[in-house]
């Protein structure tokens, strides 16, 4: 049941619209609320990943499925303007075995390139260069098919309050990028319940450690609904080659399984609801209590839905195979 927006939420929505409109050349974001496009793509637990061509095909077809466009490139052209600076936020906390695979990120960058975004305006980033390097990414601030470096300490000088949070945002997010992509994984989180696309944005504020109470609710939703993120977020991609149903956010091999999918959505809430469902199904298969029974249901998903960010009911999310 939806609730009326508070004045603050209304301002955020209006603010997001303004920021979105300021992104020169952007067309209205296509895609379907509550829809997640998924493509089969093998896991890489054995270290052998797909080729760039296979990865490119999987991401493109999943994007097409999520948006209803004829092709991934066509969808990308509608999502991003040629003069956008696109920031792709990875989640590499889990190390090389539980982070987005470099080949998939390269595939997404290639897709963006086909949509007209030049390499120097595709910025792949995470909290730190050290974490990126550990996950197999080469750090570079110039050259190559995309730039790749950590936020490290490059935050705004002043905090910005929004909802229950008050944080300095990474300047990459607040200032540099005009469009954003969340590129996460499908994994359990000890406090939040699920760490997929939405929780990934904790990595762009200076003080995520302050927002772990109450299963990170409403804090995750507050970070994502901040105009810096909400106004620019176009796409969420999850590398579900290998997923983790317990013991997160650190990598725990005995809790992983080969999900063998890449998931894509323009609805950032629906894809988290999908990840929640997938994790709960695997937990049930293993005889583990579902996340709600384990007292860590990802309540921030419902809060994000209430903020108008997308569809948060896992039962209402439509999975469209590529």
């Amino acid at each position, binding site marked *: 049941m939806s609730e009326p927006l508070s004045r603050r939420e209304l301002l955020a929505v209006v603010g997001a619209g303004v920021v979105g409109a300021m992104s020169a050349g952007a067309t209205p974001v296509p895609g379907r609320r509550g829809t997640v496009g998924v493509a089969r793509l093998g896991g890489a637990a054995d270290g052998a990943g797909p080729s760039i061509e296979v990865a490119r095909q999987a991401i493109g077809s999943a994007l097409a499925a999520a948006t209803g466009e004829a092709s991934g490139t066509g969808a990308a052209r509608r999502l991003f303007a040629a003069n956008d600076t696109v920031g792709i936020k990875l989640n590499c*906390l*889990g190390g090389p075995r539980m982070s987005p695979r470099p080949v998939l990120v390269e595939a997404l960058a290639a897709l963006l390139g086909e949509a007209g975004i030049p390499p120097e305006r595709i910025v792949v980033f995470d909290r*730190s260069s*050290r974490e990126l390097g550990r996950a197999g990414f080469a750090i570079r601030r110039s050259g190559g098919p995309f730039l790749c470096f950590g936020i490290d*300490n490059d*935050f705004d000088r002043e*905090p910005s*309050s929004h909802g229950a949070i*008050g944080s300095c945002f990474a300047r990459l997010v607040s200032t540099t990028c005009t469009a954003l992509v969340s590129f996460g994984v499908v994994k359990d*989180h*000890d*406090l939040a319940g699920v760490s997929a696309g939405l929780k990934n944005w904790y990595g762009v504020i*200076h*003080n995520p*450690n*302050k927002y*772990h109470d109450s299963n990170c609710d409403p804090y995750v939703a507050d970070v994502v609904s901040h105009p810096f993120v909400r106004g620019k977020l176009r796409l969420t991609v999850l590398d579900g080659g290998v997923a983790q149903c317990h*013991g*997160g*956010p*650190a990598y*725990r091999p005995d809790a992983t399984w080969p999900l063998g999918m890449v998931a894509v959505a323009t609805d950032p809430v629906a894809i988290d609801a999908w990840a929640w469902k997938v994790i709960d199904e695997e937990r049930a298969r293993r005889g583990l209590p579902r996340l709600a029974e384990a007292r860590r249901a990802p309540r921030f998903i419902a809060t994000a839905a209430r903020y108008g960010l997308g569809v948060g009911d896992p039962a209402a999310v439509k999975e469209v195979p590529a």
Partner: protein
Amino acid sequence: MSSELDRRRLLGLACAGLGTCLLRRGAAAEPVVGATVPGDEIPAREASWYRSLGERRVECQLCPRACQVADAETGGCGVRENRRGVYHTLVWGAACAVHVDPIEKKPFFHVLPGQRALSYATAGCNVECKFCQNWEISQFRAEQVKAVYLPPEALAKAARQAGAPLLSATYSEPVVFWEYVRDAAVAGRRLGVRSTVVSNGYIQEKPLREVLPLLTAVKVDLKAFREKFYRDLVRGELGPVLKALEIIRGAGVWLEIVVLLIPTLNDSEAEVRDLARWVAGTLGHEVPVHFTRFHPTYRLTNLPATPVATLDRAWAIARAEGLQFAYVGNVPGHAGEKTVCPGCGEVLIERVGFRVLSNRLRDGTCPSCGRAVPGVWA
């Protein structure tokens, strides 16, 4: 009034006392003593107060938040990290601020007046005050703040060589670097340097009791006398702070209290009266209480500075409730900066700001009436 030690001088101070230059401790990866490095290049140490919860999860037993922390995550303070089921402090020896301050700046008004304290801090805090003056270090994580690697022995030696008889853990929140405070106090004792702590008092009983015997004085910021304030503006709790105050007082460690009065939020007559009455009744009439002036900062920039009249009123209420040493702070030249004998009314110590103009105490007693004045005077 504080003099920041520049890197070169600090390095010199740290090395000279050690008798060897650029001492490396242990593994080759360990930074040079006195070197400025990113916080995450200082080696982590196993924390002293935590318990295992199984499945590589731990519960921190340092502050009342009692964070339950999964592998690869940090606690709410941002400077303690679970690494495969072993909880670590990331800030032992990682001083991100080092200054030589007058002890009055802490403020301690009854501890060695006019003396200096080598004051140090690391990144991190276990609460999040919306009005934090030092949020640029307290609200950041260890790896986000540059630090000078100063192990306890180097810190104590630096104090000695700077002519400071005191160490003071301050600026951010010493509770989150409690192992460093403990070890610095031990190192200081060996060199005749006493240790003080400036804290929010949000700490569990066991770690507090373990370190108190090593301390000469503690100043606690009592941020308000209402749970709602602590919940909404501090993200902490009042109850554990009051308990900590009682423990400190009961341990015989010199205690002073600071109350930052913020317009409309904690400055009502009723709240100030309740606070003063509780201090007088529970801790004793002789515990100094400093009412200090708020200036807008961090996330609380929509309120004006505290009117002096508000401070005057609080000062009067405190004295009316029987507090013998009520002070006013952040208003240089205010009459509430003086220490006055509660027996005869003689002005004993005159101050302006952090400067002591005169000190008439004789062996800790009033020269007029002979009354003993509580404090650490020698």
